[in-house]
């Protein structure tokens, strides 16, 4: 057979490339057609991510939704929904007035209740260790540097603590968990309040930063003697210990369902913007874990996906809550549920 001329060969190659491209594009188109599922995308808090991840599969079977959630931190979630790059955002920190106006027609809806555990890695010490607010603030300010500091040993009589150096793990990204934790430290330590304050990101005087709740858990796992903070699921899932923290009534509470629900009783009426503050509840809530928090979903009031979004959110605050307890998320209290459902109903196309 006569060899094809060079220009013919090039033309053939271009035609082949075009054919491949055409096949690829049609395959892409076909696969989206095969995906009769509606995609609902969200991004934000890593605090609530374990719970939201459990929702992916049952949502798919219940309504055929494909839920896509990226745990990028509360700050990033707020930024993403503000820019409308996702259908919903998730944040443990309520939005500020500036953030509300930037988001341009968004509302926040409490959709889960959890607790920030103060987790640590101290090999050789098996007891449940006690901690209180002022001591914790001093530790995170770098003023207490060893595990056998008198302030810590005083809280844990009878436990022999090593002289290991304390290393701090905090969040490097904008985090609602950081907001919750610093909110607590600001309310128990005037020094912390004036020098550092509360926020989704603060100027940490000491410590290394990890990205996401996973990052903090990773740092604590790798370094003996370290202390960090993250939603209690991350402590359990990674076999890390957490402190029992002293609440206002003097009791040392653990970040379990009882502690969260007791703390939730301290604020039963959401504010006009649906936010609630249950950090460091007053002493009549004897069983409260003082670093508990509600976490919010942030949605635009007007969305092209309104019907699906509403169905998803109604499911999340009702059926979805049943997936919570084994991950240490308490079901939403009745009063909060009512407010949430009213807020969800406001979403329109």
């Amino acid at each position, binding site marked *: 057979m006569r060899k094809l001329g060079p220009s013919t060969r090039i033309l053939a190659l271009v035609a082949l490339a075009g054919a491949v491209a055409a096949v690829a594009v049609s395959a892409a188109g076909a696969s989206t057609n095969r995906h009769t599922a509606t995609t609902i995308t969200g991004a934000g808090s890593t605090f609530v991510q374990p719970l939201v991840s459990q929702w992916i599969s049952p949502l798919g079977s219940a309504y055929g939704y494909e839920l896509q959630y990226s745990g*990028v*931190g509360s*700050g*990033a979630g*707020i*930024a993403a929904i503000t820019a409308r790059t996702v259908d919903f955002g998730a944040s443990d920190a309520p939005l*500020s007035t*500036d*953030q509300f106006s*930037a988001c341009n027609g968004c509302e926040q809806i409490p959709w889960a209740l959890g607790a920030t555990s103060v987790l640590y890695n101290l090999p050789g010490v098996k007891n449940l260790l006690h901690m209180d607010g002022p001591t914790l603030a001093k530790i995170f300010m770098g003023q207490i540097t060893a595990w056998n500091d008198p302030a810590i040993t005083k809280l844990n009589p009878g436990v022999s603590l090593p002289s290991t*150096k304390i*290393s701090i*793990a905090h969040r*490097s*990204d*904008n*985090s609602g968990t950081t907001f919750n934790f610093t909110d607590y430290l600001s309310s128990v330590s005037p020094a912390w309040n004036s020098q550092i*304050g*509360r*926020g*989704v*990101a*603060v*100027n940490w005087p000491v410590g*290394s*930063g990890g*990205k996401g709740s996973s990052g903090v858990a990773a*740092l604590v796992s*790798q*370094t003996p*003697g*370290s202390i960090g903070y993250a939603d209690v699921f991350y402590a359990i899932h990674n076999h890390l210990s957490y402190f029992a923290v002293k609440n206002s009534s003097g009791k040392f509470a653990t970040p379990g369902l009882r502690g969260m629900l007791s703390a939730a009783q301290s604020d039963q009426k959401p504010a006009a913007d649906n936010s609630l503050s249950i950090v460091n509840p007053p002493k009549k809530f004897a069983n409260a874990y003082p670093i508990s928090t509600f976490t919010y979903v942030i949605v635009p009031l007007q969305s092209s996906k309104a019907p699906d979004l509403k169905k998803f959110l109604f499911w999340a605050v009702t059926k979805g809550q049943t997936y919570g307890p084994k991950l240490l998320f308490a079901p939403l209290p009745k009063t909060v549920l009512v407010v949430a459902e009213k807020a969800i109903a406001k979403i329109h196309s």
Partner: protein
Amino acid sequence: MSTAELSAEATRRPFTGRRVRFGDVALQVVAGAAALGVTVLVGLIIWKVFEQAWPAIQKYGLGFVTTVAWNPVLGHEVYGAGSFLFGTMITSFGALLLAAPLSMGIALFLTELAPNVLKGPVTALVETLAAIPSVVLGLWGILVLGPVLRTTIEPWLHSAFGFIPLFGEPSTAGASIFTAIIVLTIMVLPIVSSISRELFLGVPHDLKEGALALGTTRWEMVRGVMFPYARGGIAAALILGFGRAIGEAIAVTQVIGGGVFIHWNLFSGGDTLGSKIAASYQGSTTKLQTASLIYLGAILLVFSLLVNLLAQWIVRRSAKKHGITRGGHA
């Protein structure tokens, strides 16, 4: 001579049938459009980066570059590039300091010392080092290098040289400026060594053999002939390696630990311009914070451009110099 010049020649001596074809114009226009497009692209990149950084540039001006602060707390927001510029400098210079002698050694080995059977494989292996993606090196840095440095090297360096502020308290998490320097060295090494190797290969044989014939040892020949001859190119290679180091964001952010301060302790955490952007960009909540992060990117861009242009200029200058020298030896 390009095809353009050849065909221009041909038109000067026209013969029947020779005229400007539509196809010629079409190809030139299309190809020219592509070249123009690339130029526009680069301009667009510079413009888009500065446009997004503008709110921060307007607010902070050039003082941003030296301000050592990064406080994202609402109500107390203040941003500055100072500590990240410092981080970029210390990590990149540190990497260059470690990589330069190693690269020279490798290049010399490959050109002067290696037995022929080793030359090919070792060259390929060193260039393969350049092919390792930065995220894989970062993964290795977090999970393998970091713990090793934290448990063995850093405590040893601290106990042996602790009086130097560079070797202060060892890091507790394995993530530190020192880890970042090691990872960056691994990335810079193949670039500098492969360029140096080509330079050394280009040193004229008669110059080398002349020196050896005069009784110098091989090292003296290298020091007296090859280094001076290749001086410009080596400088360019080092500058290109430096450019690679300052631009690396991913591997650095994985291993550097994070922090906003100027510390001379290599074992503390820190951030570079690139690593800060990679760590904080997705989570930026206010417009000012986003603009400030992009301002960091703009500084990085200007830096890389300067470094690149400097390297180009050096290469051009030394090529000219050698052109004259070679011509003079006719």
